Protein backbone atom coordinates (compact mmCIF):
# COMPACT_ATOMS: atom_id res chain seq x y z
CA UNK A 1 0.00 0.00 0.00
CA UNK A 2 2.61 2.42 1.05
CA UNK A 3 5.23 1.71 -1.52
CA UNK A 4 3.61 2.12 -4.89
CA UNK A 5 2.05 5.02 -6.70
CA UNK A 6 -1.69 5.25 -6.12
CA UNK A 7 -3.58 3.37 -8.76
CA UNK A 8 -6.45 5.30 -10.23
CA UNK A 9 -8.84 3.69 -12.58
CA UNK A 10 -8.58 4.69 -16.21
CA UNK A 11 -5.58 6.93 -15.95
CA UNK A 12 -2.53 4.81 -15.38
CA UNK A 13 0.74 6.49 -16.04
CA UNK A 14 2.91 4.57 -18.53
CA UNK A 15 5.22 3.64 -15.69
CA UNK A 16 2.40 2.34 -13.52
CA UNK A 17 1.05 0.42 -16.46
CA UNK A 18 4.39 -1.15 -17.13
CA UNK A 19 4.66 -2.08 -13.48
CA UNK A 20 1.20 -3.58 -13.47
CA UNK A 21 1.98 -5.77 -16.45
CA UNK A 22 5.29 -6.81 -14.93
CA UNK A 23 3.45 -7.55 -11.69
CA UNK A 24 1.09 -9.96 -13.37
CA UNK A 25 3.94 -11.64 -15.17
CA UNK A 26 5.86 -12.02 -11.95
CA UNK A 27 2.96 -13.60 -10.21
CA UNK A 28 1.57 -15.83 -12.92
CA UNK A 29 3.76 -18.94 -12.41
CA UNK A 30 2.98 -19.03 -8.71
CA UNK A 31 -0.72 -18.56 -9.34
CA UNK A 32 -0.89 -21.29 -11.94
CA UNK A 33 0.73 -23.96 -9.85
CA UNK A 34 -1.17 -22.87 -6.75
CA UNK A 35 -4.49 -22.85 -8.54
CA UNK A 36 -4.05 -26.24 -10.10
CA UNK A 37 -2.57 -28.10 -7.16
CA UNK A 38 -4.12 -26.29 -4.23
CA UNK A 39 -7.26 -24.37 -5.02
CA UNK A 40 -8.59 -26.94 -7.42
CA UNK A 41 -8.29 -29.89 -5.03
CA UNK A 42 -9.70 -27.76 -2.25
CA UNK A 43 -12.95 -27.29 -4.13
CA UNK A 44 -12.93 -30.90 -5.20
CA UNK A 45 -12.73 -31.78 -1.51
CA UNK A 46 -15.95 -29.92 -0.92
CA UNK A 47 -17.52 -31.66 -3.87
CA UNK A 48 -16.32 -35.14 -2.85
CA UNK A 49 -17.65 -34.59 0.63
CA UNK A 50 -21.13 -34.36 -0.90
CA UNK A 51 -20.83 -37.69 -2.66
CA UNK A 52 -20.72 -41.38 -1.86
CA UNK A 53 -17.70 -42.64 -3.77
CA UNK A 54 -15.33 -45.56 -3.34
CA UNK A 55 -12.51 -44.00 -5.33
CA UNK A 56 -12.86 -46.32 -8.32
CA UNK A 57 -16.43 -46.20 -9.61
CA UNK A 58 -16.84 -43.94 -12.61
CA UNK A 59 -19.93 -42.55 -10.91
CA UNK A 60 -19.73 -40.37 -7.82
CA UNK A 61 -23.14 -40.64 -6.30
CA UNK A 62 -24.31 -37.25 -5.06
CA UNK A 63 -25.72 -37.54 -1.56
CA UNK A 64 -26.00 -33.88 -0.58
CA UNK A 65 -25.30 -33.42 3.09
CA UNK A 66 -25.65 -37.14 3.74
CA UNK A 67 -22.03 -37.58 4.80
CA UNK A 68 -22.25 -34.65 7.18
CA UNK A 69 -25.39 -36.05 8.76
CA UNK A 70 -23.57 -39.34 9.21
CA UNK A 71 -20.63 -37.44 10.71
CA UNK A 72 -22.80 -35.95 13.40
CA UNK A 73 -23.79 -39.42 14.59
CA UNK A 74 -20.34 -40.99 14.21
CA UNK A 75 -19.14 -41.70 17.72
CA UNK A 76 -15.63 -42.42 16.44
CA UNK A 77 -15.40 -38.92 15.02
CA UNK A 78 -16.43 -37.39 18.32
CA UNK A 79 -14.01 -39.56 20.15
CA UNK A 80 -11.23 -38.54 17.75
CA UNK A 81 -12.14 -34.88 18.15
CA UNK A 82 -11.99 -35.36 21.91
CA UNK A 83 -8.47 -36.68 21.54
CA UNK A 84 -7.55 -33.72 19.35
CA UNK A 85 -8.95 -31.43 22.01
CA UNK A 86 -6.82 -33.04 24.72
CA UNK A 87 -3.92 -32.85 22.28
CA UNK A 88 -4.27 -29.15 21.58
CA UNK A 89 -4.77 -28.23 25.22
CA UNK A 90 -1.90 -30.19 26.75
CA UNK A 91 0.22 -30.03 23.63
CA UNK A 92 -0.04 -26.24 23.54
CA UNK A 93 0.22 -25.32 27.20
CA UNK A 94 3.12 -27.60 28.13
CA UNK A 95 5.71 -26.77 25.48
CA UNK A 96 4.97 -23.07 25.79
CA UNK A 97 5.27 -23.25 29.57
CA UNK A 98 8.56 -25.10 29.31
CA UNK A 99 9.77 -22.71 26.62
CA UNK A 100 8.86 -19.74 28.81
CA UNK A 101 10.59 -21.20 31.83
CA UNK A 102 13.78 -21.94 29.93
CA UNK A 103 13.60 -18.65 28.06
CA UNK A 104 13.31 -16.54 31.19
CA UNK A 105 15.98 -18.54 33.00
CA UNK A 106 18.43 -17.88 30.21
CA UNK A 107 17.36 -14.32 29.54
CA UNK A 108 17.88 -13.33 33.15
CA UNK A 109 21.49 -14.28 32.91
CA UNK A 110 22.86 -17.71 32.25
CA UNK A 111 26.07 -18.60 30.56
CA UNK A 112 26.09 -20.76 27.46
CA UNK A 113 22.91 -19.55 25.86
CA UNK A 114 23.99 -20.59 22.38
CA UNK A 115 24.85 -24.05 23.62
CA UNK A 116 21.50 -24.44 25.35
CA UNK A 117 19.65 -23.14 22.34
CA UNK A 118 21.47 -25.54 20.04
CA UNK A 119 20.55 -28.51 22.16
CA UNK A 120 16.97 -27.55 22.94
CA UNK A 121 16.30 -27.00 19.27
CA UNK A 122 17.81 -30.30 18.19
CA UNK A 123 14.60 -32.41 18.26
CA UNK A 124 12.85 -29.82 16.10
CA UNK A 125 14.91 -30.79 13.06
CA UNK A 126 14.09 -34.50 13.29
CA UNK A 127 11.43 -36.08 11.15
CA UNK A 128 8.29 -37.41 12.76
CA UNK A 129 9.17 -40.94 11.75
CA UNK A 130 12.55 -40.77 13.47
CA UNK A 131 10.94 -39.26 16.54
CA UNK A 132 8.27 -41.96 16.56
CA UNK A 133 10.84 -44.74 16.27
CA UNK A 134 12.93 -43.28 19.07
CA UNK A 135 9.95 -43.01 21.38
CA UNK A 136 8.47 -46.35 20.49
CA UNK A 137 11.75 -47.71 21.67
CA UNK A 138 11.69 -45.65 24.86
CA UNK A 139 8.18 -46.88 25.63
CA UNK A 140 8.91 -50.47 24.64
CA UNK A 141 7.16 -52.63 27.28
CA UNK A 142 10.04 -55.09 27.73
CA UNK A 143 13.24 -53.22 26.91
CA UNK A 144 12.15 -49.59 26.92
CA UNK A 145 14.04 -47.00 28.95
CA UNK A 146 10.97 -45.84 30.85
CA UNK A 147 10.12 -49.26 32.22
CA UNK A 148 13.76 -50.17 32.75
CA UNK A 149 14.33 -47.08 34.84
CA UNK A 150 11.12 -47.59 36.81
CA UNK A 151 12.05 -51.17 37.55
CA UNK A 152 15.60 -50.16 38.35
CA UNK A 153 14.47 -47.77 41.08
CA UNK A 154 11.98 -50.21 42.55
CA UNK A 155 8.83 -48.74 41.06
CA UNK A 156 7.90 -51.94 39.25
CA UNK A 157 4.21 -51.35 39.76
CA UNK A 158 4.40 -48.20 37.67
CA UNK A 159 5.99 -49.94 34.70
CA UNK A 160 3.46 -50.68 32.00
CA UNK A 161 2.94 -50.88 28.28
CA UNK A 162 2.64 -47.15 27.88
CA UNK A 163 1.39 -47.19 24.33
CA UNK A 164 -0.80 -50.25 24.82
CA UNK A 165 -2.75 -49.05 27.82
CA UNK A 166 -5.79 -46.96 26.89
CA UNK A 167 -5.25 -44.91 30.05
CA UNK A 168 -1.75 -43.81 29.12
CA UNK A 169 -1.40 -44.12 25.35
CA UNK A 170 -2.57 -40.64 24.40
CA UNK A 171 -0.53 -39.00 27.13
CA UNK A 172 2.52 -40.99 26.12
CA UNK A 173 2.13 -39.73 22.56
CA UNK A 174 1.71 -36.20 23.86
CA UNK A 175 4.93 -36.46 25.83
CA UNK A 176 6.66 -37.34 22.60
CA UNK A 177 5.11 -34.39 20.83
CA UNK A 178 6.10 -32.04 23.64
CA UNK A 179 9.64 -33.37 23.62
CA UNK A 180 9.87 -32.67 19.93
CA UNK A 181 8.43 -29.19 20.20
CA UNK A 182 9.44 -27.31 23.33
CA UNK A 183 12.74 -26.27 21.81
CA UNK A 184 10.82 -24.51 19.07
CA UNK A 185 8.75 -22.59 21.62
CA UNK A 186 11.88 -21.77 23.55
CA UNK A 187 13.63 -20.21 20.58
CA UNK A 188 10.64 -18.11 19.64
CA UNK A 189 10.15 -16.94 23.19
CA UNK A 190 13.84 -16.05 23.39
CA UNK A 191 13.42 -13.95 20.28
CA UNK A 192 10.42 -12.26 21.87
CA UNK A 193 12.34 -11.59 25.07
CA UNK A 194 14.92 -9.57 23.12
CA UNK A 195 12.25 -6.94 22.68
CA UNK A 196 11.08 -6.83 26.28
CA UNK A 197 11.65 -3.43 27.78
CA UNK A 198 14.09 -3.93 30.60
CA UNK A 199 13.32 -0.61 32.25
CA UNK A 200 9.78 -1.75 33.03
CA UNK A 201 11.14 -4.79 34.77
CA UNK A 202 13.53 -2.65 36.75
CA UNK A 203 10.75 -0.28 37.70
CA UNK A 204 8.69 -3.20 38.95
CA UNK A 205 11.60 -4.42 41.00
CA UNK A 206 11.97 -1.06 42.65
CA UNK A 207 8.24 -1.09 43.36
CA UNK A 208 8.84 -4.29 45.34
CA UNK A 209 7.38 -6.84 42.91
CA UNK A 210 8.83 -10.30 43.45
CA UNK A 211 10.13 -12.53 40.68
CA UNK A 212 6.81 -14.22 39.95
CA UNK A 213 4.89 -10.95 39.91
CA UNK A 214 7.39 -9.39 37.56
CA UNK A 215 7.12 -12.42 35.34
CA UNK A 216 3.33 -12.41 35.17
CA UNK A 217 2.65 -8.68 35.17
CA UNK A 218 5.61 -7.28 33.30
CA UNK A 219 7.26 -9.89 31.12
CA UNK A 220 4.32 -11.97 29.92
CA UNK A 221 2.25 -8.98 28.75
CA UNK A 222 5.17 -7.79 26.67
CA UNK A 223 5.47 -11.25 25.18
CA UNK A 224 1.78 -11.51 24.39
CA UNK A 225 2.42 -10.90 20.73
CA UNK A 226 4.81 -13.81 20.43
CA UNK A 227 2.73 -16.02 22.67
CA UNK A 228 -0.36 -15.47 20.53
CA UNK A 229 1.51 -16.40 17.38
CA UNK A 230 2.99 -19.52 18.82
CA UNK A 231 -0.30 -20.60 20.36
CA UNK A 232 -2.01 -20.29 16.99
CA UNK A 233 0.79 -22.27 15.38
CA UNK A 234 0.58 -25.03 17.93
CA UNK A 235 -3.20 -25.20 17.96
CA UNK A 236 -3.44 -25.66 14.21
CA UNK A 237 -0.67 -28.22 14.35
CA UNK A 238 -2.58 -30.03 17.08
CA UNK A 239 -5.75 -30.28 15.05
CA UNK A 240 -3.82 -31.74 12.14
CA UNK A 241 -1.47 -34.07 14.03
CA UNK A 242 -0.86 -37.24 12.03
CA UNK A 243 2.65 -38.66 11.71
CA UNK A 244 3.50 -39.36 15.34
CA UNK A 245 0.15 -41.06 15.96
CA UNK A 246 0.21 -42.98 12.71
CA UNK A 247 3.68 -44.38 13.19
CA UNK A 248 3.54 -44.98 16.94
CA UNK A 249 0.08 -46.43 17.58
CA UNK A 250 -2.03 -46.34 14.39
CA UNK A 251 -4.75 -44.90 16.60
CA UNK A 252 -4.68 -47.80 19.05
CA UNK A 253 -5.04 -49.45 21.44
CA UNK A 254 -8.59 -49.82 20.25
CA UNK A 255 -9.38 -46.28 19.28
CA UNK A 256 -7.70 -44.71 22.30
CA UNK A 257 -5.39 -42.49 20.25
CA UNK A 258 -7.41 -42.12 17.08
CA UNK A 259 -7.29 -38.48 15.99
CA UNK A 260 -9.16 -36.88 13.17
CA UNK A 261 -6.26 -36.98 10.72
CA UNK A 262 -5.59 -40.69 11.20
CA UNK A 263 -9.30 -41.40 11.03
CA UNK A 264 -9.58 -39.46 7.79
CA UNK A 265 -6.63 -41.31 6.32
CA UNK A 266 -8.16 -44.64 7.25
CA UNK A 267 -11.54 -43.84 5.75
CA UNK A 268 -10.26 -42.31 2.54
CA UNK A 269 -7.23 -44.41 1.76
CA UNK A 270 -7.77 -47.72 3.49
CA UNK A 271 -11.51 -48.30 3.60
CA UNK A 272 -12.37 -46.76 0.23
CA UNK A 273 -14.89 -44.36 1.69
CA UNK A 274 -13.55 -41.39 -0.23
CA UNK A 275 -16.66 -39.25 0.09
CA UNK A 276 -16.85 -39.76 3.81
CA UNK A 277 -13.14 -39.18 4.15
CA UNK A 278 -13.50 -35.89 2.30
CA UNK A 279 -16.25 -34.85 4.70
CA UNK A 280 -13.91 -35.65 7.59
CA UNK A 281 -11.19 -33.56 5.97
CA UNK A 282 -13.63 -30.67 5.78
CA UNK A 283 -14.04 -30.89 9.55
CA UNK A 284 -10.30 -30.36 9.85
CA UNK A 285 -10.46 -27.49 7.39
CA UNK A 286 -13.14 -25.75 9.39
CA UNK A 287 -11.26 -26.21 12.64
CA UNK A 288 -8.12 -24.72 11.11
CA UNK A 289 -9.95 -21.81 9.50
CA UNK A 290 -11.82 -20.95 12.68
CA UNK A 291 -8.68 -21.09 14.78
CA UNK A 292 -6.76 -18.94 12.32
CA UNK A 293 -9.55 -16.40 12.16
CA UNK A 294 -9.79 -16.09 15.93
CA UNK A 295 -6.09 -15.53 16.22
CA UNK A 296 -5.93 -12.99 13.46
CA UNK A 297 -8.65 -11.08 15.25
CA UNK A 298 -6.84 -11.37 18.56
CA UNK A 299 -3.68 -10.14 16.97
CA UNK A 300 -5.49 -7.18 15.50
CA UNK A 301 -6.80 -6.23 18.91
CA UNK A 302 -3.35 -6.48 20.45
CA UNK A 303 -2.03 -4.04 17.93
CA UNK A 304 -4.57 -1.40 18.69
Amino acid at each position, binding site marked *: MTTAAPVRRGQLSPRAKRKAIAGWIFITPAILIYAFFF*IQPFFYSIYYSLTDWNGADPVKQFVGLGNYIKLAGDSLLWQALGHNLIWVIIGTVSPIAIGLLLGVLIWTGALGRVLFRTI*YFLPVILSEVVIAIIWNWIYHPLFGAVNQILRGIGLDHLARGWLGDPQTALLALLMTAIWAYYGFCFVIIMAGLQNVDISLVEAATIDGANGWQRFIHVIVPQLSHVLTMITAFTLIGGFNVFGIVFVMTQGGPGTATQVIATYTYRKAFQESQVGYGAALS*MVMTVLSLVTSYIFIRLRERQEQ
Partner: protein
Amino acid sequence: MQNTGAVQEWSRMDTRGPRQSTARDKLLRYIGSSLRYAVLIFFTLVCITPLFWVIASSLKTTGQIAANPLGFPTEIRWDNYIEAWTVGRFGKYFKNSVIISVPIVTFVILLASLAGYGLARLRFHGSNFVFVLFLLGLMVPFQSIMIPLFYILKDIRFLGTYWAMIVPSIALGMPFSIFFMRAYFSGLPQELGDAAEIDGCNEFGVYWRVMLPLAGPAVSALVVLQFMGAWNAFLLPLIYMQKEEIRPLVLGLMFFRSRYTQNYPLTMAGAAIVMVPIVIVYLVFQRRFVQGLTAGAVK
Protein backbone atom coordinates in the same frame (compact mmCIF):
# COMPACT_ATOMS: atom_id res chain seq x y z
CA MET B 1 21.33 -8.48 22.43
CA GLN B 2 22.29 -4.97 23.49
CA ASN B 3 20.18 -5.52 26.55
CA THR B 4 22.34 -8.28 27.93
CA GLY B 5 24.28 -6.07 30.28
CA ALA B 6 21.16 -4.55 31.69
CA VAL B 7 19.60 -7.92 32.05
CA GLN B 8 22.42 -9.20 34.12
CA GLU B 9 22.24 -6.10 36.21
CA TRP B 10 18.59 -6.76 36.78
CA SER B 11 19.13 -10.36 37.68
CA ARG B 12 21.61 -9.33 40.27
CA MET B 13 19.11 -6.93 41.74
CA ASP B 14 16.68 -9.76 41.66
CA THR B 15 18.44 -11.79 44.28
CA ARG B 16 19.67 -8.93 46.39
CA GLY B 17 16.37 -7.91 47.92
CA PRO B 18 15.96 -4.92 50.19
CA ARG B 19 18.79 -4.49 52.66
CA GLN B 20 19.89 -8.02 53.56
CA SER B 21 23.13 -9.18 55.03
CA THR B 22 25.76 -10.00 52.43
CA ALA B 23 26.23 -13.58 53.63
CA ARG B 24 22.59 -14.40 53.12
CA ASP B 25 22.69 -12.53 49.88
CA LYS B 26 25.51 -14.69 48.63
CA LEU B 27 23.81 -17.89 49.75
CA LEU B 28 20.56 -16.96 48.03
CA ARG B 29 22.40 -16.07 44.89
CA TYR B 30 24.25 -19.33 45.00
CA ILE B 31 21.02 -21.32 45.45
CA GLY B 32 19.25 -19.35 42.76
CA SER B 33 22.06 -19.85 40.33
CA SER B 34 22.31 -23.59 41.07
CA LEU B 35 18.59 -24.01 40.61
CA ARG B 36 18.71 -22.14 37.36
CA TYR B 37 21.41 -24.35 35.94
CA ALA B 38 19.80 -27.47 37.38
CA VAL B 39 16.65 -26.76 35.39
CA LEU B 40 18.53 -25.84 32.22
CA ILE B 41 20.69 -28.93 32.41
CA PHE B 42 17.74 -31.15 33.20
CA PHE B 43 16.05 -30.14 29.95
CA THR B 44 19.31 -30.51 28.10
CA LEU B 45 19.44 -34.10 29.24
CA VAL B 46 15.81 -34.61 28.31
CA CYS B 47 16.68 -33.51 24.79
CA ILE B 48 19.76 -35.54 24.15
CA THR B 49 19.47 -38.69 26.26
CA PRO B 50 16.97 -40.34 23.89
CA LEU B 51 19.30 -39.66 20.98
CA PHE B 52 22.28 -41.14 22.76
CA TRP B 53 20.21 -44.12 23.72
CA VAL B 54 19.33 -44.73 20.09
CA ILE B 55 23.01 -44.69 19.20
CA ALA B 56 23.90 -46.97 22.11
CA SER B 57 21.16 -49.44 21.17
CA SER B 58 22.22 -49.40 17.55
CA LEU B 59 25.66 -50.68 18.48
CA LYS B 60 24.48 -53.71 20.43
CA THR B 61 23.57 -57.23 19.47
CA THR B 62 20.03 -58.46 19.95
CA GLY B 63 21.29 -60.51 22.87
CA GLN B 64 22.81 -57.48 24.55
CA ILE B 65 19.58 -55.56 24.08
CA ALA B 66 17.66 -58.23 25.93
CA ALA B 67 20.25 -58.65 28.66
CA ASN B 68 21.08 -55.01 29.25
CA PRO B 69 18.76 -52.65 27.40
CA LEU B 70 19.82 -49.47 29.15
CA GLY B 71 23.56 -49.64 29.49
CA PHE B 72 26.37 -48.94 27.09
CA PRO B 73 27.21 -51.67 24.58
CA THR B 74 29.82 -54.06 25.94
CA GLU B 75 31.26 -54.65 22.51
CA ILE B 76 30.61 -52.22 19.71
CA ARG B 77 28.87 -53.81 16.78
CA TRP B 78 29.26 -51.61 13.70
CA ASP B 79 27.91 -54.44 11.58
CA ASN B 80 24.41 -53.24 12.36
CA TYR B 81 25.12 -50.10 10.37
CA ILE B 82 26.54 -51.99 7.43
CA GLU B 83 23.60 -54.35 7.43
CA ALA B 84 21.04 -51.59 7.82
CA TRP B 85 22.64 -49.60 5.04
CA THR B 86 22.56 -52.53 2.60
CA VAL B 87 19.25 -54.16 3.39
CA GLY B 88 17.58 -50.83 4.11
CA ARG B 89 18.66 -49.38 0.74
CA PHE B 90 19.21 -46.07 2.47
CA GLY B 91 21.64 -45.01 -0.22
CA LYS B 92 18.91 -45.13 -2.81
CA TYR B 93 16.36 -43.44 -0.55
CA PHE B 94 18.87 -40.73 0.26
CA LYS B 95 19.33 -40.05 -3.42
CA ASN B 96 15.55 -39.94 -3.84
CA SER B 97 15.23 -37.41 -1.06
CA VAL B 98 17.80 -35.20 -2.76
CA ILE B 99 16.09 -35.55 -6.14
CA ILE B 100 12.85 -34.48 -4.51
CA SER B 101 14.08 -31.74 -2.20
CA VAL B 102 16.32 -29.78 -4.53
CA PRO B 103 13.70 -28.87 -7.13
CA ILE B 104 11.13 -28.18 -4.43
CA VAL B 105 13.40 -25.70 -2.69
CA THR B 106 14.62 -24.11 -5.93
CA PHE B 107 11.19 -23.58 -7.38
CA VAL B 108 9.56 -22.46 -4.19
CA ILE B 109 12.23 -19.80 -3.74
CA LEU B 110 12.10 -18.73 -7.36
CA LEU B 111 8.34 -18.58 -7.74
CA ALA B 112 7.69 -17.17 -4.30
CA SER B 113 10.30 -14.45 -4.52
CA LEU B 114 9.03 -13.44 -7.95
CA ALA B 115 5.46 -13.34 -6.74
CA GLY B 116 6.39 -11.77 -3.43
CA TYR B 117 8.29 -9.07 -5.23
CA GLY B 118 5.45 -8.51 -7.64
CA LEU B 119 2.98 -8.17 -4.80
CA ALA B 120 5.21 -5.96 -2.71
CA ARG B 121 6.69 -3.57 -5.25
CA LEU B 122 4.57 -3.65 -8.35
CA ARG B 123 1.14 -2.66 -7.19
CA PHE B 124 -1.40 -3.62 -9.76
CA HIS B 125 -5.09 -4.01 -10.03
CA GLY B 126 -6.13 -7.24 -8.36
CA SER B 127 -2.94 -7.70 -6.42
CA ASN B 128 -4.74 -7.51 -3.11
CA PHE B 129 -7.13 -10.20 -4.15
CA VAL B 130 -4.32 -12.45 -5.28
CA PHE B 131 -2.50 -11.89 -2.06
CA VAL B 132 -5.51 -12.78 0.05
CA LEU B 133 -6.00 -15.88 -2.01
CA PHE B 134 -2.51 -16.97 -1.06
CA LEU B 135 -3.08 -15.97 2.55
CA LEU B 136 -6.10 -18.23 2.74
CA GLY B 137 -3.82 -21.08 1.78
CA LEU B 138 -1.92 -20.46 4.99
CA MET B 139 -4.94 -21.52 6.97
CA VAL B 140 -5.90 -24.60 5.01
CA PRO B 141 -4.14 -27.75 6.17
CA PHE B 142 -2.74 -30.25 3.70
CA GLN B 143 -5.38 -32.75 4.80
CA SER B 144 -8.04 -30.53 3.27
CA ILE B 145 -6.73 -31.22 -0.20
CA MET B 146 -4.96 -34.53 0.10
CA ILE B 147 -7.83 -36.71 -1.09
CA PRO B 148 -8.71 -35.00 -4.39
CA LEU B 149 -5.06 -34.24 -5.02
CA PHE B 150 -4.48 -37.99 -5.12
CA TYR B 151 -6.96 -38.37 -7.95
CA ILE B 152 -5.70 -35.27 -9.77
CA LEU B 153 -2.14 -36.60 -9.64
CA LYS B 154 -3.41 -39.94 -10.84
CA ASP B 155 -5.22 -38.37 -13.79
CA ILE B 156 -2.18 -36.46 -14.95
CA ARG B 157 -0.04 -39.60 -14.48
CA PHE B 158 2.17 -38.09 -11.83
CA LEU B 159 1.56 -40.83 -9.28
CA GLY B 160 4.44 -43.23 -9.14
CA THR B 161 6.90 -40.56 -10.31
CA TYR B 162 8.97 -37.97 -8.47
CA TRP B 163 6.62 -35.31 -9.78
CA ALA B 164 3.89 -36.58 -7.45
CA MET B 165 5.76 -35.08 -4.58
CA ILE B 166 7.69 -32.24 -6.18
CA VAL B 167 4.88 -30.32 -7.81
CA PRO B 168 2.32 -30.44 -4.99
CA SER B 169 5.02 -29.50 -2.50
CA ILE B 170 5.84 -26.43 -4.54
CA ALA B 171 2.16 -25.46 -4.57
CA LEU B 172 1.86 -26.11 -0.84
CA GLY B 173 4.93 -23.99 -0.20
CA MET B 174 3.55 -20.98 -2.05
CA PRO B 175 1.30 -19.36 0.57
CA PHE B 176 3.80 -18.99 3.34
CA SER B 177 6.77 -18.27 1.12
CA ILE B 178 4.99 -15.56 -0.83
CA PHE B 179 3.73 -14.03 2.37
CA PHE B 180 7.23 -14.10 3.77
CA MET B 181 9.01 -12.74 0.70
CA ARG B 182 6.43 -10.04 0.15
CA ALA B 183 6.92 -8.85 3.71
CA TYR B 184 10.65 -8.78 3.27
CA PHE B 185 10.58 -6.93 -0.03
CA SER B 186 8.13 -4.41 1.38
CA GLY B 187 10.61 -3.65 4.12
CA LEU B 188 13.46 -2.85 1.75
CA PRO B 189 14.01 0.83 0.96
CA GLN B 190 12.21 1.90 -2.22
CA GLU B 191 15.05 4.17 -3.30
CA LEU B 192 17.33 1.27 -4.19
CA GLY B 193 14.93 -0.01 -6.79
CA ASP B 194 14.24 3.46 -8.14
CA ALA B 195 17.95 4.13 -8.53
CA ALA B 196 18.43 0.94 -10.50
CA GLU B 197 15.49 1.80 -12.67
CA ILE B 198 17.02 5.16 -13.50
CA ASP B 199 20.20 3.30 -14.37
CA GLY B 200 18.20 1.50 -17.04
CA CYS B 201 17.18 -1.74 -15.40
CA ASN B 202 13.80 -3.16 -16.35
CA GLU B 203 11.52 -4.62 -13.70
CA PHE B 204 13.07 -8.04 -13.88
CA GLY B 205 16.53 -6.53 -13.71
CA VAL B 206 15.64 -4.62 -10.58
CA TYR B 207 14.31 -7.79 -9.01
CA TRP B 208 17.12 -10.05 -10.08
CA ARG B 209 20.16 -7.78 -9.72
CA VAL B 210 19.18 -5.53 -6.85
CA MET B 211 16.31 -6.77 -4.75
CA LEU B 212 16.87 -10.53 -4.66
CA PRO B 213 20.49 -10.20 -3.51
CA LEU B 214 19.31 -7.80 -0.83
CA ALA B 215 16.79 -10.38 0.32
CA GLY B 216 19.56 -12.86 1.10
CA PRO B 217 18.62 -13.37 4.76
CA ALA B 218 14.99 -14.04 3.89
CA VAL B 219 15.94 -16.39 1.10
CA SER B 220 18.31 -18.37 3.25
CA ALA B 221 15.69 -18.71 5.97
CA LEU B 222 13.21 -19.95 3.41
CA VAL B 223 15.70 -22.39 1.97
CA VAL B 224 16.15 -24.00 5.37
CA LEU B 225 12.43 -24.05 6.08
CA GLN B 226 11.47 -25.53 2.74
CA PHE B 227 14.33 -27.95 2.69
CA MET B 228 13.51 -29.34 6.10
CA GLY B 229 9.85 -29.49 5.16
CA ALA B 230 10.59 -31.49 2.03
CA TRP B 231 13.21 -33.67 3.66
CA ASN B 232 11.03 -34.59 6.62
CA ALA B 233 7.65 -34.74 4.86
CA PHE B 234 5.78 -37.88 5.76
CA LEU B 235 2.08 -37.85 4.97
CA LEU B 236 2.51 -36.56 1.45
CA PRO B 237 4.96 -39.25 0.29
CA LEU B 238 3.01 -41.86 2.26
CA ILE B 239 0.04 -41.22 0.03
CA TYR B 240 1.63 -40.26 -3.27
CA MET B 241 5.03 -41.97 -3.37
CA GLN B 242 4.32 -45.62 -2.96
CA LYS B 243 6.64 -47.06 -5.54
CA GLU B 244 9.63 -48.52 -3.84
CA GLU B 245 12.16 -47.01 -6.27
CA ILE B 246 11.12 -43.43 -5.61
CA ARG B 247 10.58 -43.55 -1.87
CA PRO B 248 12.23 -40.76 0.10
CA LEU B 249 14.41 -41.46 3.12
CA VAL B 250 11.80 -40.92 5.81
CA LEU B 251 9.31 -43.26 4.22
CA GLY B 252 12.04 -45.78 3.54
CA LEU B 253 12.83 -45.73 7.24
CA MET B 254 9.23 -46.42 8.13
CA PHE B 255 9.07 -49.43 5.85
CA PHE B 256 12.47 -50.56 7.04
CA ARG B 257 11.27 -50.53 10.61
CA SER B 258 8.22 -52.63 9.91
CA ARG B 259 10.36 -55.17 8.07
CA TYR B 260 12.67 -55.76 11.00
CA THR B 261 10.36 -55.46 13.97
CA GLN B 262 12.29 -58.03 15.95
CA ASN B 263 15.74 -56.68 15.35
CA TYR B 264 15.88 -53.57 17.50
CA PRO B 265 19.59 -52.82 17.06
CA LEU B 266 19.08 -52.86 13.30
CA THR B 267 16.05 -50.60 13.54
CA MET B 268 18.00 -48.16 15.70
CA ALA B 269 20.91 -48.24 13.27
CA GLY B 270 18.45 -47.34 10.51
CA ALA B 271 17.06 -44.48 12.59
CA ALA B 272 20.59 -43.27 13.29
CA ILE B 273 21.53 -43.41 9.61
CA VAL B 274 18.62 -41.13 8.83
CA MET B 275 19.13 -38.90 11.83
CA VAL B 276 22.87 -38.36 12.13
CA PRO B 277 23.66 -36.53 8.86
CA ILE B 278 20.93 -34.00 9.41
CA VAL B 279 22.06 -33.48 13.01
CA ILE B 280 25.60 -32.81 11.84
CA VAL B 281 24.46 -30.33 9.21
CA TYR B 282 22.34 -28.71 11.87
CA LEU B 283 25.20 -28.43 14.34
CA VAL B 284 27.35 -26.75 11.70
CA PHE B 285 24.72 -24.33 10.48
CA GLN B 286 22.64 -24.15 13.61
CA ARG B 287 22.00 -20.40 13.49
CA ARG B 288 20.62 -20.67 9.97
CA PHE B 289 18.43 -23.58 10.99
CA VAL B 290 17.02 -21.81 13.98
CA GLN B 291 16.34 -18.67 11.98
CA GLY B 292 14.83 -20.58 9.10
CA LEU B 293 12.60 -22.90 11.03
CA THR B 294 11.30 -20.18 13.30
CA ALA B 295 10.91 -17.64 10.50
CA GLY B 296 7.23 -18.31 10.32
CA ALA B 297 6.44 -17.64 13.92
CA VAL B 298 8.80 -14.93 15.05
CA LYS B 299 7.41 -11.90 13.31
